[in-house]
């Protein structure tokens, strides 16, 4: 993994586009070839996110049939850690990108709005590992959360207007307090401890 001359030109293009170093790309490429089973309860959603055309920046809706390595890298680039030398503007767009990724994960029907039902589905999946749960408590939580979001974003509108769901701007507002750019990252620092699955 030494000299830069051995790096093929496609790799370099990829590196420029997604911001990874060539070493990291190599590691991810190896990993891409041996994708392991994801034991998480929301794995379907995560896997979907990889195929989501919006995240791949190809189309505003729909699922891709298959993704190649380039698409894989595009998705992974959402989880890059921030760098010290980023200026305000880049930081802001970086943050927006990550939040957009999250938003797409919630919004399953591609309409750009998270409705109560979609929110409930997310909660169901989050809690699906827990068999003792009552449905109603989840419902109550989802409703409470929607109420909160609605009251934060709809303070000016009157009672006869209908609140359809959380739009992306509202989503941004909810996330204002949390510094997503520091939270939503995976360390690609040292990849020697990569598990190999056979």
């Amino acid at each position, binding site marked *: 993994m030494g000299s830069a001359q051995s790096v093929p030109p496609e790799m370099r293009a990829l590196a420029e586009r997604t911001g990874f170093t060539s070493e990291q790309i190599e590691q991810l490429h190896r990993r891409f070839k041996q994708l392991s089973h994801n034991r998480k*309860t929301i794995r379907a959603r995560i896997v979907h996110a990889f195929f989501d055309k919006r995240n791949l920046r190809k189309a505003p809706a729909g699922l891709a049939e298959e993704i190649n390595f380039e698409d894989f890298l595009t998705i992974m680039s959402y989880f890059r*850690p921030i760098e010290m030398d980023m200026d305000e503007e880049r930081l802001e767009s970086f943050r927006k990108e990550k939040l957009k990724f999250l938003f797409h994960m919630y919004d399953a029907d591609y309409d750009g709005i998270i409705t109560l039902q979609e929110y409930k589905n997310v909660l169901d999946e989050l809690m699906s590992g827990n068999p*003792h749960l*009552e449905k109603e408590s989840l419902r*109550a*939580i989802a409703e409470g959360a929607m109420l909160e979001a609605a009251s934060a974003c709809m303070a000016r509108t009157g009672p006869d207007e209908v609140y359809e769901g959380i739009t992306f701007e509202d989503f941004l507002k909810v996330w204002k307090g*949390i510094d997503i750019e520091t939270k939503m990252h995976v360390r690609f620092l040292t990849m020697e401890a990569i598990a190999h699955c056979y």
Partner: protein
Amino acid sequence: MGAAALRALPWALLLLLGPLLPGQRLQADATRVSEPTWEQPWGEPGGITAAPLATAQEVHPLNKQHHNHSAEGHPKPRKAFPVLGIDYSHVRIPFEISLWILLACLMKMGFHVMSSVSKVVPESCLLIVVGLLVGGLIKAVGEKPPILKSDIFFLFLLPPIILDAGYFLPLRQFTENLGTILIFAVVGTLWNAFFLGGLMYAVCQIGGSGLNHIGLLANLLFGSIISAVDPVAVLAVFEEIHINELLHILVFGESLLNDAVTVVLYHLFEEFANFEQVTIIDMVLGFLSFFVVSLGGVFVGVIYGLIAAFTSRFTSNIRVIEPLFVFLYSYMAYLSAEIFHLSGIMALIASGVVMRPYVEANISHKSHTTIKYFLKMWSSVSETLIFIFLGVSTVAGQHYWNWTFVISTLLFCLIARVLGVLVLTWFINKFRIVKLTPKDQFIIAYGGLRGAIAFSLCYLLDYEHFNMRDMFLTAIITVIFFTVFVQGMTIRPLVDLLAVKKKQETKRSINEEIHTQFLDHLLTGIEDICGHYGHHHWKDKLNRFNKKYVKKCLIAGERSKEPQLIAFYHKMEMKQAIELVESGGLGKIPSTISAVSIQNISPKTLPDSNALSALSKDKEDEIRKILRSNLQKTRQRLRSYNRHTLVADPYEDVWNQMLMKRQKMQQAELQLQNAYLTVPANRIDSPTMSRARIGSDPLAYEPKPDSENLPIITIDPASPQSPESMDLSNEVPKGCGGLPPSPEEDEEGLVMRPKEPSSPGTDDVFTPGTSDSPSSQRMLRCLSDPGPRQEPEEGEPFIPKGQ
């Protein structure tokens, strides 16, 4: 006028106390013989010297007189029966202790009255000044003021503060920054100690005749004592400036964890000072002992924490002493660690951190509040006492002022701190995602305050091996004063000047909670995909281990399966309900709900509204059955009070009512507009009600005496669902006309108007209820408090310290 009187009060008390304090030593084993002034031989009824007004005057029991008489040995001339007598020596020690604590509390009160001063000067400085004044007063009277004895400090004054810090430690931030904190604590303290010790040795060699005899080891010992950042001082100052959480946890975490290093270095150099030669073996052993001390302390703490958690699982019948278990086990952890010369502070913190999630899941709400308040109270009083005694001890102690030594100590302390922080931050920033900016570094360096721990450690040195102890003491006190006064006072304007990020006061919302959990899952998944065993992977593994094995052992009943999100939601709900009540009451609806009522949130597709009425009929029967059984319970419930059960809090009923009303309203509106299909007959209890049911709170709702002929079903908080759903099922036919239930209806109280005449009336109450359906059984089971939640809201004290 009242304010002026209040302001005068502390000074008046000082004057009162002045004559009282002479000659006391705060030792638990103070012998009476040493204080002849206060001894009142029984045979001299008139000999009362300088009797203060506050002296207790008691009537002595008869046998005491006889005892004294017989102890005298020779027969006394017969005198009149003493109606009143004075025996101060009998109560002297508790009395004086109480007076000191009272002084501390009055000082705290006084500072809040003089708010103009306390805005500029941090409380710790003011307290030290008070201590100086009191010490000066005592000396002026001619008596010897007491010195802060190290035993008392380490055994009684320090543990409450540390326990308070450990129990409410914001765990998430702590673990996220653990690497940084450890590096600062261990490497930083080591660097400080050796740098300072070495330089002081050089100074001593150069410094002239007075200093030449101080050896390298003595200097290193001095360096190790003074290099540790003090948690008490840091807490006292940082709490008032409301700095952002990252910096707070960094400096504070460092001050807590460097105790292990300090303990090791202190004992090491103390022992080495006795040796003629220090070999490599000794140094290796010293290095090993560091691990033993720190890890051993943590291990002891974890053991005690687990025992405490396990004990709390069985306390459901004796709620009153639950807080005691928490305090006692933690204190035992501290003492046990001190037995083996392990780090007591780390033991205390480890036990607090380990026991908290499980204990909080098991204990009642009242116990939780008790623990919180007691910890805050004790730590507050402790802190005040520590600072006052620092002031007093300054006046009382013997000092040996040597300009060179003291000034150079001060200088090198500061230099060492700044250098250490700079170098370490450069190193740490390579591994951190959120880098530490120069501003952060400045605050971290500036926040390295020294305090009473350094003083007490120095005081523990014995004279024969360290005859320069007085000089050390003087230097340490100077450094403490400098850091607390100068740095403490200037840090607040500096923080404003540098525009350092302050603590965000936003409450944590349910949305944030959901998103954060979702993000956790997502990141774990992504890490899995990458094959990278990172932070989240291990965290997830720990959580799963916790859920599968540990929680089952340590948490009672069904709570062990309750997921975090649900617990958080319940907690939030109860908080809102409490706020509702406190904001003035019944019938008022908070603005958040009224501004955007749920009717505004519409689904994309409207399901069949016919199904609604069909389903509710089914539920109606169930509801009726439940209601019947609960009515029976209402009558049977006795209102009793004894020491083993807690009296029902009068507000708790109101809270329950408000909570139910709110839920009901939410539910009702949502149901109407969205035409949801199921009436949630088996809704989970809100915490207050479930807590009410756990054995110790016999609540009884008296039915309204002068009701109309309608059978009024009042609520037994034990089963709130039934009236609620009952109302809903009644409202549904009403509401299907399209009107939401108006708020006025709710104000009549939870009244049920049965549709059919056969519904339970008052006559049915005494008939035993039919067998409960499984759903109602489930409802009536004890689902108790919100579970563990390490929240930022818990990290900040309920009563802000120092305020």
